[in-house]
């Protein structure tokens, strides 16, 4: 068996790579797949924090690459979701501790035993980025509806095409933090505006919602703790990764109904 390695990347930093890695991974595992979340953000690891698994780290990615332990030993099993594992990044080593070939070999190895390897890419386009993309079969590029974010995403698509050996048809974009109220007033770029420029397929559209920050702070993926529109967006995204044909619903997130439901505590 050979699974699929998907790198979650972006041009601009802070646009939701780690959030997407955690929640897409959790959603894929909830759908019955075995998933390894690989934190490639060496020196700035935080996937473990978002997953609430920080206190269980014994070995990290650099230990594995240096041969201190096998990757199996470094994997942290998520007790809440069957089939979900985290391979944490090192916090103290510097980014050059790993060579691209080592990373590639590691991802190949993990793919032998798991359905999905989701690689959380560091921000920027330096060595850490190259390490993160080298073993990937597919890429998810996270973009927020801002001109600068789209511009940087465009650059990354170009780089992936040149350096990552990932063909354009295996690149997907996720538009994160969209606010339909602003889009409707034409104060925010629309998904189709972004699509026009990047010309890659859209895998998901995630609303901007405080519940993301709440769940990040609790260390619990939102797909576990909530059934709101953000959680649904991640489930839909997982479905599309699994090849299902799930239509996009452009319905507003902060509708009157959902506001009322939130008020009565029926939704988050």
């Amino acid at each position, binding site marked *: 068996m050979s699974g699929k390695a998907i790198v979650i990347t972006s041009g601009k930093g802070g646009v939701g790579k780690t959030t997407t890695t955690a929640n897409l991974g959790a959603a894929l595992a909830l759908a019955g797949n075995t998933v390894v979340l690989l934190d490639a953000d060496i020196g700035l690891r935080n996937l473990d924090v978002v997953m609430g698994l920080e206190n269980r780290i014994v070995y990290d990615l650099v230990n594995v690459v240096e041969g201190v332990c096998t990757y199996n030993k470094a994997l942290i099993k998520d007790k809440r979701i069957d089939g979900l594992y985290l391979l944490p990044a090192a916090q103290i080593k510097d980014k050059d501790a790993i060579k691209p070939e080592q990373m590639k070999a590691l991802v190949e190895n993990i793919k032998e035993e798991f359905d999905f390897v989701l690689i959380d890419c560091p921000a920027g386009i330096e060595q850490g980025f190259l390490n993160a993309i080298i073993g990937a079969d597919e890429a998810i590029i996270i973009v927020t509806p801002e001109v600068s974010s789209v511009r940087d995403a465009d650059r990354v698509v170009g780089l992936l095409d*040149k350096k990552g050996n990932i063909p354009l048809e295996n690149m997907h974009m996720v538009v994160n933090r969209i606010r339909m109220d602003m889009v409707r007033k034409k104060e925010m770029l629309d998904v189709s505006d972004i699509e026009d420029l990047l010309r890659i397929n859209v895998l998901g559209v995630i609303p901007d919602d405080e519940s993301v920050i709440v769940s990040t702070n609790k260390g619990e993926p939102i797909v576990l703790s909530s059934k709101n529109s953000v959680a649904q967006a991640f489930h839909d995204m997982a479905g599309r990764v699994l090849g299902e044909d799930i239509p996009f619903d452009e319905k507003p997130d902060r509708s009157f109904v959902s506001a009322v439901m939130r008020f009565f505590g029926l939704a988050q």
Partner: protein
Amino acid sequence: MPANSLRIKGSKNGIVIEFEEDIGQAVTLLEDKLKNSPAFFSGSEAIIVLPETFIVEEQFLARLTQVLANSQVKLRELRRVNSTTIIETEIIKTPEKIGVEQGIFWVEKRLRSGDRITADGDLVIVGDVNPGAEVVATGNILVWGNLLGVAHAGSDGNEKSRIRALRLQATQLRIGSHISRAPDDLSTPQGPEVARVGPNGIVIEAWEKLVTEPLPFWRRLFIHGREVKL
């Protein structure tokens, strides 16, 4: 003097191969050298430096790419001895997608932010030039797509050069030493347009003739080497 027709140097960015006047001989010599030490060259990237006056033709490009590919060497950049870049191949992954015909460089590729293409002569892009991408030519520029980035025609001073695009909405246009930036109101152009230097700087006008021509006409014109007027 075959030994002098070719100079090979190592550099941070790959091997630099400098051709002297007798290009045909130089390519043959290069082929021999590459074959003789495959382990040394295989997997490396080459920057080819050509004499100032040598005219790049498709045939030459095809042979060169072939010779390099046979020894697993990637063509990274083609440039002149005075260091004007002709083609940066990092931008163009597959060599089939670049070509030179009658001194016109054509590139079939969407150029994304950070990409830059420089041509010594006229340059044709089949695809969009996204914001953050840059196309520069000493001659004319034609973009068969959306021109949203920066274009500089007549880069060594030819103010008669023109820039054409199916949708001309560049961040900045330069012709010779004239510069014009995108208007702040960002109106969408109605159809294909052409930019040229008028008495008061760069003017943009409808590219009327082309609107009536079906798309394949253009490609026949370039790719099969008929008389071309940009």
